[in-house]
């Protein structure tokens, strides 16, 4: 089990800079997830840790040892790939034992480890099959089995569930969470699916443009996003953001004012409110007024998309489905002033109130 430390890691392809200086510490046994939009550098960062790409600058340490110049195998990590990357001409058993054979382990030890992994992943009935005779979920399990048998110091996952259909993805998500608990291993996981990130991670690393935007537990990122990017990237549906300015004990937003108990900081430029922190009121009785644009009923929740002049469309989440809201209906919107997020002109979070 391992502590992984990145210090000042950069990566450029030619003149294009992909990773622009990353400092990060991944604790022993931690489940760390890299999230970010396409091109944010999250997969590149994982490949740098794996040793599949050479760093352009900075250092990567595993358990205090500098492995920056070592090849992938010497880092004693395992990786699960997005496409599974099984060896097509080998059986399931051969796929799992290949790395151990390369390492010249004794046959008995190889068999012991492969059988143990097969038992954990319920792969015993398929050991003699070739990958092409397996379903997507089974292939995914073989890929994870291949990672387990190496008894690595840490596991790396590169969007491992993105090729599975929705139902299977939920099952595999639960299995990976169980696996983490069972092996108590350090895991680094890349995904663009923020539900995976929120449910699996001990710690989420939000990347954008090759720079870490914020590191924290899922609830920290949700409750206290450090900037507008994180605020809008974490949470679904995403946070509503309105242009805002301070005025005494109130915040002026397009079409109205939000009154607070204490004066807001003067430098605020944006006000953020999650969909569940906005309440629908009769017109004129909320902080601002709008008109219902679209209503989505999911059964447990209803999402109302309310068009507010000069502020765009705000998403409001209402618990339940019997909400008596119709399209084109004029409504008022009231913000939960305890749960507002304030940002300055540079998009950095500002503490809500001096109090």
């Amino acid at each position, binding site marked *: 089990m391992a502590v992984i430390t990145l210090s000042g890691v950069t990566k450029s392809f030619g003149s294009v800079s992909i990773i622009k200086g990353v400092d990060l510490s991944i604790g022993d046994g931690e489940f760390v997830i890299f999230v970010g939009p396409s091109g944010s550098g999250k997969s590149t960062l994982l490949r740098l840790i794996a040793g599949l790409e050479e760093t352009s600058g900075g250092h990567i340490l595993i358990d205090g040892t500098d492995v920056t110049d070592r090849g992938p195998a010497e880092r004693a990590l395992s990786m699960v790939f997005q496409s599974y990357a099984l060896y097509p001409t080998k059986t399931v058993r051969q796929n799992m034992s290949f790395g151990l054979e*390369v390492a010249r382990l004794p046959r008995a030890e190889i068999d012991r480890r492969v059988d143990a992994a097969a038992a954990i992943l319920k792969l015993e009935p398929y050991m003699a099959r070739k990958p092409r005779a397996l379903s997507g979920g089974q292939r995914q399990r073989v890929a994870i089995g291949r990672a387990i048998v190496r008894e690595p110091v840490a596991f790396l996952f590169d969007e491992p569930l993105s*090729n599975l259909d929705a139902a299977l993805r939920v099952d595999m998500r639960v299995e990976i969470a169980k696996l983490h608990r069972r092996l108590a291993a350090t895991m680094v996981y890349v995904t663009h699916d923020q539900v995976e990130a929120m449910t699996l991670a001990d710690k989420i690393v939000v990347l954008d443009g090759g720079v870490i935007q914020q590191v924290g537990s899922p609830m920290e990122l949700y409750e206290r996003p450090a900037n507008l990017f994180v605020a809008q990237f974490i949470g679904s549906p995403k946070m509503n953001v309105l242009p805002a300015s301070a005025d005494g004990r109130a915040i002026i937003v397009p079409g109205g004012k939000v009154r607070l108990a204490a004066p807001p900081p003067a430098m605020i430029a944006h006000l953020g409110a999650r969909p569940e922190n906005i309440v629908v009121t009769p017109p004129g009785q909320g902080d601002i007024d709008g008109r219902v644009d679209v209503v989505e009923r999911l059964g447990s929740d209803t999402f109302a998309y309310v068009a507010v002049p000069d502020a765009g469309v705000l998403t409001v989440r209402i618990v339940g489905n019997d909400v008596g809201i119709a399209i084109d209906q004029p409504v008022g919107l009231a913000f939960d002033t305890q749960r507002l997020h304030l940002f300055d002109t540079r998009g950095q979070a500002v503490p809500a109130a001096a109090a």
Partner: protein
Amino acid sequence: MGIVGNTVRSARFRRSRWVLTAILCVYLVYTLIPIFYVVTASTKTNADLFGTFGLWFSDDFHLRENLVDLFTIQDGIFLRWLGNTFFYALTSAIGAAFFALLAGYAFAKYDFAGKRLLFALVLGAVMIPQTALVIPLYLLFSKVGLLNTPLAVILPSLVFPPGVFLMRVYVEEAVSDEIIDAGRVDGAGELHILSGLTFRLLMPGLATVFILAFVAAWNNYFLPLVVMSTSDQFPVTVGLAIWYASATTGSGGNLLFTVVMAGSLVSILPVILAFLIMQRFWQGGLSAGSVKA
């Protein structure tokens, strides 16, 4: 399934199918007539060869006698030529496929300085006819003393630029980068990854390069004509051409055109056989299940 935008039953599809079929038939006949001529001619006596209709058999079926002549004339030198050709073609094809695999794999999967320039050189080399290189090769081999040795034919045949191009394209399609990465994480070296994890995925491409190189070497005429000087080193192509010349001038005693025709017939059979053998490697879907399509 038809051509996009046309259904199988549409008049347009049927019209274009007829035209295409007709064109292909013309091409087929054009290809088959000379082969058929070789087949009929090698069953005739020398007199019938010139006295009967060329594209049909004559009453006197003389194939067995022609074959006996073919393998006994000049102490059975024809068998020696056939063996030479087989040896040159097999070693050339194995070597050419081997180098094409290594070069194509490197071009497809590695980044290195000068990659674009080197590949441009390979593509350029495809354009140069081998005939143009024969004189420089002759001078080169004469300096190093390789004239009239098997290496003089084999070494130039190992350089097979179209094979490098084909293998590059094939490797790019057949081997995913993630399989190579998975092998690296598992601790396998690059050659081990190639031989143990990806080689069998590349068999169809390799078989194609092998057969193309084999046929090219089998049919090679001008290079061995120039670099080989004694009859016991000749391949079939050169040997038959010399017999043909003798038959034309009538100086070869019992050397007859029918024997040359029988020799031609025998010399194309191994190539057909090679195609039939290699056919089993041309099967798709070898990498199915490795990665999600």
